[in-house]
């Protein structure tokens, strides 16, 4: 690791790391500072905390953050519950030589763009879409039910994406487990259920946590899925932010809301930090 790296080099290492550092400072740190500064002004005026005040006092504003957190929590739980058994089947039940193919297939739609994926769900959930059509044909419902433009549609769109993501992280984690853990547990008299609860589940917790954290970051920050599938019946935080820019051109308020959203994600990051270390192999 770094201990054996040579210390000499003079300007060379700075020339190497400089461009990436400068890029990050100029186009990531500076924008953030600009946003922070703009957030404590009002549109067309001087210093003011009015934007933050508005968020904390106006229910339609803080409600958007609650909606975001609620939807994210529901999505994370459902996605883990659906993905875990699926990842287990892929890792343990499918013969080794087919595993790679099965996994690639399982995450293929992961690579469609956000916009296209959400639009596809709109097709499925539309009033005369595939689901309603099938249910009516089967005689299960008389009239099409409203599926699109609901929270249900937003959650479905999100779960679809995050089941694939979590399958990937949990699968990777399951594959790393040495079979000897299971053998040892069996030798010591543990049944499959106890082995799972006391050995497998704790050891795959990092995979679940990484996936859950990614779910949290991506779902709380995604504008497309709630906008296309949920519509404007209830706003999530990203929709509220985009609304400030789109209709009103209110950069200060949009900046304040963005910073609040980022703070929430940072708190979550710190809570999960111990599972998320990026290490050199």
């Amino acid at each position, binding site marked *: 690791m770094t201990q054996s790296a040579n210390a000499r080099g003079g300007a060379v290492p700075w*020339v190497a790391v400089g461009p990436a550092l400068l890029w990050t400072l100029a186009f990531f740190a500076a924008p953030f500072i600009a*946003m922070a500064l703009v957030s404590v002004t009002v549109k067309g005026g001087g210093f003011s905390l009015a934007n933050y005040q508005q968020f904390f006092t106006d229910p339609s504003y803080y409600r958007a953050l609650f909606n975001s957190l609620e939807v994210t929590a529901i999505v994370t739980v459902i996605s883990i519950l659906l993905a875990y058994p699926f990842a287990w089947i892929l890792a343990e039940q499918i013969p080794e030589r087919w595993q790679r193919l099965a996994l690639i297939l399982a995450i293929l739609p992961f690579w469609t763009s*956000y916009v296209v994926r959400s639009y*596809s769900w709109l097709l*499925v959930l539309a009033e*005369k879409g595939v689901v309603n059509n099938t249910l009516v044909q089967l005689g299960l419902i008389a009239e099409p039910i409203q599926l699109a433009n609901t929270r249900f549609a937003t959650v479905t769109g999100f779960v679809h994406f995050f089941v694939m993501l979590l399958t990937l992280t949990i699968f990777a984690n399951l594959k790393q487990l040495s079979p000897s853990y299971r053998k040892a547990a069996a030798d010591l008299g543990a049944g499959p259920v106890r082995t799972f609860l006391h050995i497998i589940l704790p050891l795959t917790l990092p995979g679940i946590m990484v996936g859950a954290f990614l779910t949290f970051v991506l779902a709380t920050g*995604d504008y*497309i899925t709630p906008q296309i599938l949920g519509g404007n019946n209830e706003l999530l935080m*990203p929709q509220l932010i985009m609304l400030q820019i789109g209709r009103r051109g209110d950069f200060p308020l949009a900046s304040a809301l963005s910073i609040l959203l980022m703070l929430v994600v940072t708190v979550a990051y710190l809570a999960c930090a111990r599972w998320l270390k990026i290490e050199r192999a």
Partner: protein
Amino acid sequence: MRSAIRLATIIYAVLIYGFIFLPVVTLVLFSFQATSFPIPPFSGPSLRWYQAVLGDARLTSALLNSLAVAVISSAVATLLGFLAAWGFARFRLPASALMRGLITLPLTVSYLIIGMGLLVLFNSIGFPKSLTAAGIGHVVINLPLCFAILYSQMGEHQANIERAARDLGAKEWQVLTLVTAPMLWPALFASFFLSMTFSWDEFVISFLLTRFDTTLPVEIWNLLRSGLNPKTNAVGSLVFLVSIAFVLLFELVFFRKSRS
């Protein structure tokens, strides 16, 4: 009992695969719809909507814009990530962990906030909305990824070979281009293609930072305003096809590599 469990796992796997593929199959199937609504019953197959897409100058130019932004921004992100990974792995720098943390930090921030920040910054310094602005944003989101991938691949045996090259009289830039880069090409390739797929699919940054000339996801978004339309299915299917091509290329290269 055992066969019951076996049956349950098969049913479960089929259901999940069904859930995963339901929207994609619907999208592609109704892109071949002959009538004007992409809803059942299926009335195709017809290629009229693909013709409509290829005849739409806005969509084809957006497609070229997307490819250009993806290739250029990924090349920049891979190059900067490679240089930084090499610098941090091979030299002892003060506050190294802090600087590495800074470079990887954008990974934890959503695209929306990165785009918002750049919008506010560019707006305040008078930098116009453009494909360049969107490309800058795409480098911001992909650089941490490229850096993380390449930094994790900077192994000790490569450092020894670099040392040997230096002892034989190679200059630092020769070591980098003739020794380090060729040894790391699979990781460089991985970084580049992952960046390509992320840039290709990225919506919100391009949406915020471009105006007239824009990328394909933004143009598709504009199409959505007209409601459900088989033309959107057709262009969506084409986008999906390109993404799959990226992934398969990636797979082929790495499959070959892991076998050899």
